[in-house]
């Protein structure tokens, strides 16, 4: 990171990344305590992507994400308490507890999941963007997905449709080098995902996803392009997940040294160091941030703990819309 950065903005992004990190560490802990169940996919190491990209989005823009979406939801401003409650399965959760960790939704924040069929949300994102175009709205749609998802046919169809129909869609590929245990070189014959843009005539670029400032800058540039041309853009963020794929993963497919090597690029440390170096932050401010984060996470846990279970009589709700939904 060579940039300088506005102090408050820098602190704001640092806070968000730290919140995501701490929130997820807590979630992992709660998982081992069996407070949280199902699949839990942590974003630890990738925080710069969510936080960086989110800087380019306005409140009216739409977001679609994967099952590894806590970071996106938090960076989008979905309430941490409601996210935690969701992971507990409580009805105060952001999806009323129906979805769990993989299905965070907040329609008010225009956060449309939390989708767990890999690549399955890409066509949906094309449609959400198409609607904005038809409605002549300035809204942009942002869709996060992994490099593994880019091998699915849905990626191809969605890239082609988005470009063919010229819809305002930002494709954000989070290339963390692994799809579960399958390394990039075993899932793509051409590992530079950004080059796939050229097969559709779509503008694309790759960015260092461990550097929140680089991600932010690239995302803003991409969003501007999209807003001015109406055409989609493929942004590939090269990153790494520090933790296992999910809580069921023995990590047989990569060695510890590789992980340690990547940890040297920890996006949070990097931003902290930058802010320290440029004098925007000191050790005291960092511990203050840490304790603010801790308080926020504790509050989220408290909210989740205090939440309630949906009554069993409600089991078949939300299969079809209820009168007030229509």
């Amino acid at each position, binding site marked *: 990171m060579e940039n300088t950065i506005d102090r408050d903005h820098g602190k704001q992004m640092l806070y968000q990344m730290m919140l995501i990190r701490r929130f997820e560490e807590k979630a992992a802990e709660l998982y081992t305590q069996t407070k949280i169940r199902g699949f839990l996919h942590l974003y630890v190491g990738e925080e710069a992507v969510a936080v960086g990209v989110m800087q380019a989005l306005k409140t009216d823009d*739409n977001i679609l994400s994967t099952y590894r979406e806590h970071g996106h939801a938090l960076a989008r401003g979905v309430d941490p308490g409601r996210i935690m409650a969701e992971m507990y399965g409580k*009805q105060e*959760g*952001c*999806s*009323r*507890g*129906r*979805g769990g960790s993989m*299905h965070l*939704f*907040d*329609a008010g924040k225009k956060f*449309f*999941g*939390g*989708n767990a*069929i890999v690549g*399955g*949300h*890409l*066509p*949906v*994102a*094309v*449609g*959400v*963007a*198409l*609607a*904005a175009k*038809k*409605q002549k709205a300035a809204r942009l749609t942002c869709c996060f997905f992994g490099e593994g998802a880019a091998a699915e*046919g*849905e990626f191809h*169809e*969605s890239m*082609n*449709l988005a470009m*063919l*129909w010229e819809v305002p869609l930002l494709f954000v590929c989070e290339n963390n080098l692994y799809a579960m245990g399958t390394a990039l070189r075993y899932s793509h014959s051409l590992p530079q995902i950004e080059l796939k843009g050229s097969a559709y005539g779509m503008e694309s670029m790759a960015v260092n996803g461990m550097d929140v400032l680089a991600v932010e800058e690239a995302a803003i540039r991409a969003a501007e392009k999209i807003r001015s041309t109406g055409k989609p853009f493929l942004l590939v963020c090269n990153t790494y997940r520090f933790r296992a794929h999910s809580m069921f993963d023995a990590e047989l497919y990569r060695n510890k040294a590789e992980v340690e090597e990547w940890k040297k690029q920890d996006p949070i440390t990097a931003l902290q160091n930058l802010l320290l170096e440029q004098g925007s932050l000191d050790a005291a401010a960092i511990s203050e941030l840490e304790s603010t984060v801790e308080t926020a996470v504790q509050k989220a846990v408290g909210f989740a703990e205090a939440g309630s279970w949906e009554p069993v009589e409600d089991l078949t*709700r*939300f*299969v*079809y*819309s*209820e009168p007030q*939904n*229509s």
Partner: protein
Amino acid sequence: MANENNTISITYREAIKQALRDALRADERVFLMGEDVGRYGGAFAVSKGLLEEFGPDRIMDTPLSESGFVGAGIGAAIAGMRPVVEVMTVNFSLLAMDQIVNNAATLLHMSGGQVNVPVVIRMNSGLGRQLAAQHSHSWESFYAHIPGLKVLSAGTHEDARGMLLAALKEPDPVVIFEYTAMLNLEGKIPAGAGIVEIQKAAIRREGKDISIITYGPGVYKSLEAANELAKLGIDAEVVDLRVLRPLDESCFLQSVRKTHRALVVEEAWRSVSISAEISSRIMEQAFYELDAPVHRLCGVEVPMPYPKHLEDISVPQAGDIVNMIKKILQHD
């Protein structure tokens, strides 16, 4: 609605087209998308002329990308539009099934009621043109299995005309089956026919001796059979299921409670079919009212063969219905 006597004659194809036109005129949010719906005029000429009338933004030709454009329809629905997505035939819908089942049908639930998906997906189903094993199947059963979907089957001209309009008023995803073999069929509908209700099954012919429960092309075949049977003094009631999910069981149960016998007829393969569901619901809820076991007449369990003589015997025909009913009643 129009005076009963004031009827017009119309093909099944034209009925669908009129509904599309009405829907596009009535609501700016409605658009039609699918392979060849525009410039080609629709694979089965259903949407011919609509591109000229509504332009390419409302009549969108899509590439061959079933998963892609069905998913795009879902996305557009989430975001406030009212897309009508045409999947050319149910055979190709398998390519979009993930979108329909894992997205359209589940988003409302996964989001705890926040995200509803008012998409209408139309597809042609069935055989009848010697299109062989990759173009002739009747897979209504797949979709009828899925909570979260509403599944309609247009077995009459009035429903071909009106179901689409009703579907567009639903807040949730609706799949409508239309039938390749019926497109050229002429039928009479009230001149002012429009929207129909889509909660209930319908009695297409009243009778007292046996209930024929069916849907799709089974309806006209069953009515034909009932006419034949009437000549033999057998008075068959014909129930058109119309809504394959959620099933209007009270209609067919009531019919069976009256006739005490039932034959379920469908063109789809027999095993794990809609007819099985009907039979088992009668078993569960009207067992003690039955004078004879419920029987099924279904498609033969073979991928559709090309030659006409084999295609014809792959699905029940009116004559088969007549014979089967004679057998059931003889048994008494």
